[in-house]
C-alpha cells in the first residue's frame, strides 16, 4: 500500500471523516493545478496525486507497457483507491483524467459514485461524422512541439521564481513539479492521450456525472463537452464563462460554484 502512495506521490488532507474526493491532473500538469480549488472542499477527505512520470511521482515505476493505454492510468487510480479504502468517493478529473475517471468508475462503480469531468474529451482526433477538434497530423505536430521544448523543460525555469523569497512555496512548486516531468514519459502520455478513443465507454458510466465545459476551449470544444454529457446517462452539463482548457486555474470561483451545486444535490 505504501508503495502505491509513494509511487503516485499521494497527498491526503482535509477532514479525515469527510467524504473522499480525488483530484486527478491532466496532461502537462501535476497535482498543483488544483491549488485554487481544494481550499473550498476542506470538509471532504481530499486526495491529490501525480500520474507516474509527472510531478513528484516515482518515475522508475513507469513502464511503457503498463501505461500504453488510459486503462493503465485507470488501474493506477484504482490501486490508490484500494490503498486508501475509498468508497462512495467524488472523482474530479481534468482533461484526459476525466476519461481515466470514467474507466475507473466503470471498473469499480462503488468507489467513485460521483464524477466531475473538467474539460473532458473522449476523442481528440476528428473521425467520421465526429468532430474532436484535431487532425492526426496536428497531433504529430504536438509531439514535435514537445521535442522542441525538451531543453526548456529541464530546470531552466527554476531561477525565475527565486526573486520571491516571500513565497518560497512557489519555488518548491516549480522545481518539484513542472521541471521534473520526464520528457520521454510526457511524450508517451501525449500519444496515449491524444490518440485515445473512449466514446464507446461513456454509456457504461453508472455514476452521477458533472461535465464542466469552458465557453471557448481549444483542446476540448463545446460540442465535445456536450457530446460527453449526452452519452453519459446520469449527467449534468455546465457551461463556464471562461476561455481556455484549465478553468480550475483561470476561473476557479465559477468552477468551485458549479462543483458545489452539483455535490449539494447528491
Amino acid at each position, binding site marked *: 500500500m505504501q508503495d502505491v502512495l509513494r509511487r503516485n506521490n499521494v497527498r491526503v488532507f482535509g477532514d479525515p471523516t469527510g467524504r473522499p474526493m480525488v483530484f486527478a491532473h*491532466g*496532461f*502537462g*500538469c501535476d497535482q*498543483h*493545478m488544483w*491549488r485554487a480549488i481544494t481550499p473550498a472542499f476542506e470538509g471532504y477527505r481530499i486526495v491529490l496525486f501525480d500520474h507516474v512520470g509527472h510531478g513528484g511521482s516515482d518515475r522508475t515505476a513507469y513502464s511503457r507497457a503498463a501505461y500504453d493505454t488510459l486503462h493503465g492510468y485507470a488501474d493506477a487510480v484504482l490501486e490508490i483507491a484500494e490503498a486508501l479504502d475509498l468508497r462512495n468517493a467524488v472523482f474530479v478529473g481534468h*482533461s484526459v483524467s476525466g476519461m481515466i475517471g470514467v474507466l475507473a468508475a466503470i471498473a469499480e462503480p462503488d468507489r467513485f459514485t460521483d464524477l466531475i469531468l473538467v474539460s473532458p474529451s473522449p476523442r481528440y482526433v476528428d473521425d467520421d461524422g465526429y468532430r474532436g477538434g*484535431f*487532425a492526426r497530423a*496536428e*497531433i*504529430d*505536430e*504536438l*509531439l*514535435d*512541439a*514537445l*521535442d*522542441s*521544448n*525538451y*531543453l*526548456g523543460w529541464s530546470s*531552466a*525555469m527554476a531561477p*525565475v*521564481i527565486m526573486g520571491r523569497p516571500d513565497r518560497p512555496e*512557489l519555488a518548491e*512548486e*516549480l522545481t518539484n513539479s*513542472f521541471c521534473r516531468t520526464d520528457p520521454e514519459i510526457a511524450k508517451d502520455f501525449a500519444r496515449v492521450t*491524444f490518440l485515445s478513443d473512449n466514446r464507446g465507454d461513456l454509456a457504461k458510466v453508472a455514476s452521477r456525472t458533472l461535465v464542466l465545459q469552458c465557453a*471557448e*476551449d*481549444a*483542446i476540448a470544444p463545446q460540442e465535445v463537452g456536450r457530446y460527453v454529457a449526452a452519452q453519459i446517462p446520469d449527467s449534468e452539463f455546465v457551461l463556464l464563462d471562461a*476561455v*481556455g*482548457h*484549465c478553468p480550475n*486555474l*483561470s476561473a476557479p470561483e465559477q468552477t468551485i460554484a458549479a462543483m458545489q451545486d452539483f455535490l449539494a444535490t447528491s
Partner: protein
Amino acid sequence: MTEPTSAAAPPRRAAEIAQLEQSVEDLYEHAPCGYLSTLPDGTVIRANATFLAMTGYRADELVAVRRFQDLLTAGGRIYHETHYAPLLRMQGTVREIAVDIVCAGGRRLPALVNSVLKRDAAGEPLLVRTTVFDATDRREYERELLRARTRAEESEARARVLAQTLQASLIPPAPPEIPGVDVGAVYRPAGRGDEVGGDFYDVFQLAGGEWAVLLGDVQGKGPRAATVTALARYTVRAAAIQSPQPSSVMGLLNAALLRQGADRFCTMVYGRVAARADGPVRVRLACGGHALPLLVDRRGQVRTVGAPGDLLGVIEGASWEDAAVELVPGDALVLYTDGISEGRRDGEFYGDGRVRALLARHCADGAQVMATALVDEVVAFQHGLPRDDMAVVVLKAPAG
C-alpha cells in the same frame, strides 16, 4: 530611469542617439524582438512594429480580433493550453518556450517566447506581456541535435546487439552438462553489457568419457580482446584432443598466442574431468596466471587446489604444473575470474575472504545456485553496475 549617455559617441551623432534612446516609443516599436500584449485570455491588445514585420500581419488584423494562441500551429496550441497557460497562471512567468507562429500567408516562424503575467492590485490577472524571438536558425540547429541524438541512440543499440551477440558466441549457448557431475555456470558482462568482455569459459566432451572444463580471462575488453578469446577457445579445443596433460594444453595455447602475435595475454584454468558412477569425480588441472580454483567441501571448509603457473601469451618457455583433485560427494570445485575477487566498491575489493565466506554459506546448495549467488553478491557489492565482467564455473560431486 537613468539618462542614456552618449558621451562616448562623436559629438555630431550624440544628439541623434540621445533622441532615439529617450524615445520610449522607439524602444518599444523597434525593439530587437517582437512584443505582444494580451488580455489574460490571450486576446491581443497591442503588437510592436518588429512583431508585425516578423509575421506580416497588420495591427488591425490582430488587435482585439486574434488571441495569441490563435497564431500558433495546432500542436503549439495544445502545448499552449496544457503547459504554457497553466504555468503562466501558476508562476506568473514562462521563459524560452519554443512555438511555431503561423504568419500572414501561412508561413511558419519558429520562435522562442517569454511571457510575464501582470496582476492588478487585488492580485487578479490583468494582462500578459510576451516577447517573441525569431528562432529559425536555432530551431534548425536543435532539430539537427535531435536527429544526431536519435542516430547516436540507434548506433548505440546496434553496438550493444553486436557486443552481446559476439559475447554469446564466446560462451556455451546452453548451460553445460556433464553426466554424473552437477555443473553450474554464470557469465555476467561489465556495466550494462555494452561491451564485449574478456572472460570466457567452456565445457566439452573428450574421448574416453572424460570432459574438458576451462575458464579464463583475456586482458582488456572490446573486439580485440574478443579475437584473442576466440583464438584461445578453439586452440584449447584442438589441444585437448591432442594432449592428455593439462600442462601440455597450456603449452600449446601459449605457443599459439605467441605465434599469432596477439598483443594481449591471457589467464586460464584448464581441467580434465572424469566421473564414474562408483567413485569420486577426478579432476586433473593446470593453472596459468589465474586465481587457483577453490574446493568447498560439504562442511563448508574452503581451500585452494592446484599450483600457480605462468601467464599465457607472454614468454616462450613458460611452465605449468599438473595437479589432481578428487571430489567426494558434496565437494564443489569453483573456478572464477578476477571480476569476482577484484569487484570494487569505493576502492575496496570484494576480496578472497568474502568469496570464501559466501561459498561456505552455500556449501549445501547445488552448483548453479552457488555460481549465481556468488555473481549476484559481487554485483550487489558494486551497487548493481560491475566494472569488470565475471565468469564462474562450479563442478560439484552430487551428495549421495
